[in-house]
């Protein structure tokens, strides 16, 4: 084994005449916490869509844990252990917090296993544990629609925990959060997802500083630079396209 949980080779996707991702070779090691940076339109979200199967590549391959997952449907990549959190929290508004977690729970994907699923003690314990981790124990029976924005973000992180994926993709997990909530989310990500691999797309530099180990910078669908945050910040190419504003200031 290569030690990489995720590898893309020559990954290209074209929308009409526009190449959102072009010939991208991208690798993530098992257990790594990778941050992806890039200006708007760099192809960050498209890359996430490609990995989870929401978008199909025009050419190139994606390998997850040694298996070729190119062209699989989202529910298939999810069953293999890839979990995703969206930019705007995608929770089920008209269901209670607890129901949201239950639906996300791993292992009852088939129609018949869903029909004859019984909530056993183990599942109940796990639910209670997740509820206290995401700080929503008191609101377990409330509809998700009644939660605040930050709480919804946490609920979605809780749903990811219930799903128990090996590779976690977080698309701007702190969007719309206060500084305090952001910091708390950073701690949450570092503690609860330990031992798993995470790919985080984020703009908030304070947050990136808090969590980043290795940073990848995308620009116009291509890999621009890769390294530690310090290396990235001193990279002249990156300064030119992304940190320009900071340099000028």
């Amino acid at each position, binding site marked *: 084994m290569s030690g990489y949980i995720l590898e893309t080779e020559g990954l290209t996707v074209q929308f009409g005449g526009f190449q959102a991702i072009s010939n991208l070779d991208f690798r993530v090691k098992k257990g790594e916490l990778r941050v992806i940076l890039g200006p708007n339109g760099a192809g960050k979200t498209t890359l996430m869509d490609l990995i989870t199967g929401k978008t199909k590549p025009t050419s190139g391959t994606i390998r997850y844990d040694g298996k070729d997952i190119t062209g699989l449907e*989202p529910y298939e990549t*999810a069953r293999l252990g890839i979990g995703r959190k969206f930019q705007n929290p995608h929770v089920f508004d*008209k*269901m209670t917090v607890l129901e949201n977690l239950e*639906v996300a729970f791993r292992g009852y994907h088939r129609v018949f296993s869903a029909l004859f699923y019984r909530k056993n003690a183990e599942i109940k314990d796990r639910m209670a544990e997740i509820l206290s981790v995401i700080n929503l124990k008191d609101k377990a*029976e409330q509809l998700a629609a009644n939660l605040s924005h930050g709480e919804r973000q946490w609920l979605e992180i809780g749903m990811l925990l219930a799903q128990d994926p090996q590779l976690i993709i977080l698309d701007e997990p702190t969007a719309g959060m206060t500084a305090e909530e952001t910091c708390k989310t950073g701690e949450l990500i570092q503690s609860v997802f330990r031992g798993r691999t995470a790919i985080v797309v984020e703009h908030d530099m304070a947050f990136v500083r808090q969590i980043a180990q290795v940073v990848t910078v995308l620009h116009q669908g291509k890999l621009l630079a890769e390294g530690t945050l310090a290396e990235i910040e001193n990279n002249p190419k990156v300064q030119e396209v992304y940190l320009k504003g900071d340099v000028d200031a």
Partner: protein
Amino acid sequence: MRLYNQRIDNVLAVVTLIFLAVFPLLASDFRVELMGKFLVYALFALSLNLVWGYTGLLSLGHAVFFGLGGYMLGLAYSLQNGVPPFMSRFGIEEIPLVMRPLESVPLALLLGILVPGVVAGLIGYFIFTSKVSGTYFSIITLALAMLFEMFVVNMQAYTGGFNGLMGLPRFPVNGEPLPLTTYYFIVLGVTALAYLFTKWLMETHFGKVVKSIREHESRIQFFGYNPARFKIFVFTVSGMLAGLSGMLYVPMNGFISPQDVGVVMSTSVVVWLAIGGRGTLMGPVLGALAVNWLSNLLSEQYPTLWQLFLGAVVVLIVLFLPNGLYGTLEHWWKERSLHRAEKETKAVLLTESKVDLKKARWRA
């Protein structure tokens, strides 16, 4: 909160059941027969509720499954005395091979559930695996209802055509038709069982998945669910329930015609559900019973104006109570109990803080 929610559902279900159970003792045979028919409609509405109410798929052709069930039993009764007149009129002297199984009523009863189930499963398979959804799903099902109605009318030699099947007996056992009240209680029992089945199904994990498909279909895929499978299954189960209601309709009504299986019937059930409250347990039952009673009363009082009046009621409810009558009631009940619970916790906190204050003073 959940406790209060359970209570209003259960309380209303029990009250309705008691009312319907004593109804035959108080009302004339004419009214009992009407109520029996409306109960069948309630069962039909329960079947659509699974698809539209809980899964968010607006089927505008559900009468196809109702009709398939109804015609299975209707044809079975028509074939009991050899070749029926509507066939012999076209020179058919022998019962066609395809219809032979319907000579046996018990087999027809089974087919009346299985055939709509299989048809719904196939339609569901083609529609949902090709990812047709939303308005397109509604349009396709509407077209199916029109096709089916035309099919029944045009296959006059085999279905009785436009006139439908008439003179159907009330569920004869050993050649004797059942008394009206007995048959009424059978319908009531089956509807109650179907209600409990819906309740069970929507409380399982399957029910939660289906509701999350209604909320956000693309999201649920990222948790490993294939929404197409779930939709096909729920559509099939709903088709079978609709077939069952169609079968119960035939002995109660005494005849079945293409009007009962096409666009008019398909849209009527949508209206009952919208008024009662889709996606709730009692909504379909109360909606079907209330709308049909109301239209019946109105048609007796104002033979020419009643449909206009009913139309106005429908428009008003859809505009101002989008959750339907029962849905609004349930929502209000939930809010109220939530407020009450909040007040109680606040009161507890207040007394606790007073106690703290007293203690503090004591110490001082």
